């Protein structure tokens, strides 16, 4: 499942996509993210039949991604995003 967390507002699209078929719930993204965007849960609230842990975007962060991710997204010389780099299975992507 492609889980798109985030929003679109007047200023643009801000979505973090987690491919739950690739995510193994290892929690590397949780460890590297300076803004505590991710959490790993045992039961996927969007897919009750799934067995095994999965990463999701924390509820209180979902409406603020544009702001919360800013430190990782400087306007110049943008380095690779820590969460995307840390995810060995390539489950995480950003829309902006």
């Amino acid at each position, binding site marked *: 499942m492609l889980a798109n967390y*985030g929003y679109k507002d007047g200023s643009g699209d801000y979505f973090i996509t987690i491919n739950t078929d690739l995510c193994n719930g290892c929690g590397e993204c949780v460890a590297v993210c300076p803004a505590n965007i991710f959490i790993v849960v045992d039961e996927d*609230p969007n897919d*009750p039949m799934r067995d095994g842990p999965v990463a999701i975007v924390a509820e209180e962060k979902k409406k603020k991604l544009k702001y919360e991710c800013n430190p990782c997204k400087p306007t110049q010389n943008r380095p690779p995003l820590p969460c995307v780099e840390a995810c060995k299975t390539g489950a995480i992507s950003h829309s902006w």
Partner: protein
Amino acid sequence: MQIEMREEKKQEFWRWKESNWKNPDIEWRSGKFITLGIDVGSVSSQAVVMVDGQIFAYSNMRTGSDSPHSARKALDFVLEATDMPEDRVDYCVGTGYGRVNVPMADRTITEIACHARGANFIYGPEVRTVLDVGGQDIKAIQCDEKGRVTNFLMNDKCAAGTGRGMEVFADLLGIAIDEVGERSFQVKEEPPPVSSTCVVYAKSEALGLLRKGWSREKVLAAYCRAMAERIYSLVERLGVKPQLAVTGGLAKNSGVIERLMFMIGLKPMNSKWDAQIAGAIGAALFGYALCQKGKGRKK
């Protein structure tokens, strides 16, 4: 120039009656698993009782100011339609915006999963896309033939494209919300959409248009069009696969829905069931599936 504003009684985005119903052909006493789905939304709450995966009874009510109370009321109301005692329920799943506050729930599941599962049940396995536009959010879901979510997004940050955004406009123009559809088609030709996405800026844009001499209907048409485009841009992120089911309050606003369907190029599906109960149906079905898998309530 003065802009005349009619005092209009505040109305909700869509109107409906509170109701409950029971299927006379189902005998709960012979059921193996009886499951309950409770969907507490921001506007309405539903409870569905299923006997072995078939709809036995449901209720549909307005959500009050606190979620636990609304969940209780919906449950009492559905039980009222039956002669079944509450403790006969094997498993209860809570869903919806107020799901964390459903006290009797054994488990909570997001409305995304429940809507997809419910749509699969009420519209059939051909449903691939579910679009739900509510008072405060937009959900676009893709699912497979079993009703399992394959791709979803939910936008509850921004009022643009939601029922709330439409309310702001209906208020501004002094047009009753249930007349929006009809009035928006009372224009000689379709005006270009309002260009600002943001409801706040669209409002100032609309005031400018009124000052320029546009009729209220024309401004309304321009906003309905903008709203349709907004919703379309969100569904487009996922891609629209046929068949398409449209649920939520928007389904009742022809001003937006007809413009949207024209853009998508599909017709929404119909069903004998009220689409409002899709979430609660999905919740009850998940309860049933969990019981079958032996993951039911630990007695």
